[in-house]
């Protein structure tokens, strides 16, 4: 097991990503943050909170579950979905999709399909904490990246959050 980001480094990365988001959006009146269930929401909770602290703007913040949009519904076990909670219209908004680890890109493909069923956003951006380089199976690239790592398929990247796992850190498991 190798530590990719310790608590201190993770905190710096979160601050940087939040600032990059503010730099790009300036005004969040037509933006919305949407975290991906289940693990992405710990990350999106933090980003939404930091952005709010800095700008004191109330950004619409939703959570999206993509279970029903997966392309592997019948290749593995049937999964019980998590809750989707988007209580605002995404119509013509600038949506920032947030997930913790970008790997094959299939989750994001499913997330975009799921998102479009809620309306037509003006544009969609992608923020990930960890981008697993060279492992993409679909042409999907993030707009905001915490850290890029080179991994092989048998390795796992696990992002731990204090609220859920007791500690803030990112580890690579062989």
């Amino acid at each position, binding site marked *: 097991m190798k530590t990719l980001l310790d608590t201190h480094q993770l905190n710096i990365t979160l601050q940087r990503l939040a600032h990059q988001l503010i730099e790009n959006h300036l005004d969040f009146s037509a933006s919305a943050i949407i975290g991906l269930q289940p693990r992405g929401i710990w990350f999106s909770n933090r980003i939404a909170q930091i952005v709010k602290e800095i700008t004191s703007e109330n950004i619409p913040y939703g959570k999206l579950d993509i279970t029903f949009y997966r392309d592997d519904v019948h290749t593995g076990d049937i*999964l*019980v979905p*998590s809750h989707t909670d988007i209580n605002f219209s995404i119509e013509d908004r600038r949506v920032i999709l947030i997930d913790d680890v970008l*790997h*094959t890109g299939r989750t994001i493909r499913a997330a975009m399909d799921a998102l479009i069923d809620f309306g037509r956003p003006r544009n969609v951006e992608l923020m990930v904490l960890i981008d697993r380089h060279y492992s993409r199976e679909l042409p999907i690239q993030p707009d905001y990246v915490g850290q890029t790592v080179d991994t092989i398929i048998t390795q796992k990247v696990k992002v731990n959050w204090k609220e859920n796992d007791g500690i803030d850190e990112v580890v690579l498991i062989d």
Partner: protein
Amino acid sequence: MNFKFSIRMSLSVKHLLGIKELNTQDIETIFRTADNFKQVLQRPIKKVPTLRDTTIADIFFENSTRTRISFELAEKRLSADTINFSSSGSSVSKGETLIDTVNNILAMKVDMVVMRHSASGAPWFLAKHINASIINAGDGTNEHPTHALLDAYSMSEKLGDLKGKRIAIIGDIMHSRVALSNIFCLKKLGAEVTVAGPPTLIPKHIESLGVTVQYDVKKALQWCDVANILRIQLERQHKPLFSTLREYALFYGINKSILEGLQKDILIMHPGPINRGVELNSDVADSKQSIILDQVENGVAIRMAVIYLLSGKADVVE
């Protein structure tokens, strides 16, 4: 998508034949999944692409309006392809057997069968002989599992955890598959159940299922948090079990003044179709206490959940 952090589903069954065969965990998994589908049904686009690769045959050997529509809508909301079959006007009237009929339909590459049949036990018989997943949409006077699930789901939406809640099932218990499935489901969820109605419509030894029997409907209403009132099924009563409908309505029918006399608000449910003025008066059926239309709405979400959760277990039919 190498990571599957969602909780893995494991319904303990391959088919939904009866509530009797489910465990409490199964029921809770179905409810949790139904929550999500209920939310899907409130979106501008009320469907998901999940079952694009699945074909479902709705085979109804007995009349049905709402169950059939509810299943069909649930299947369409999941993007499954559907085939509808009813026994009238089919080769069943030429004497084809159940297995032949179903195997012929399955030969056209169908993944799942939703079946209603007038013979109790028919889905169990079918499950022994075919590979596809089977959902029982009502068999004779035995079980109607999706109905019991939607009833319990609708109750828990209003009351929270059903543990210790008091449910009265009132009316034609003898001929009701809704009653039997409800009893199994509610007991598994920890609720207390009383059945009430005329002695001729309550089966002997029903206490062995862990329910109490009450012949005085007013006392049952006084006791309960929820009254699930059943339809008098005249089509199944081959000998007279009470003298007239008017007499039934007088002694066992529920009207506004009875409810007002209770000095508490109980929930009123009915599986439909209602015999208005017999088991239930319009002033009750259309009142604020009635959650009959919630039951219908939840029926689609519950059936979507059941179909989705069973869809992974279908063996490929060659």
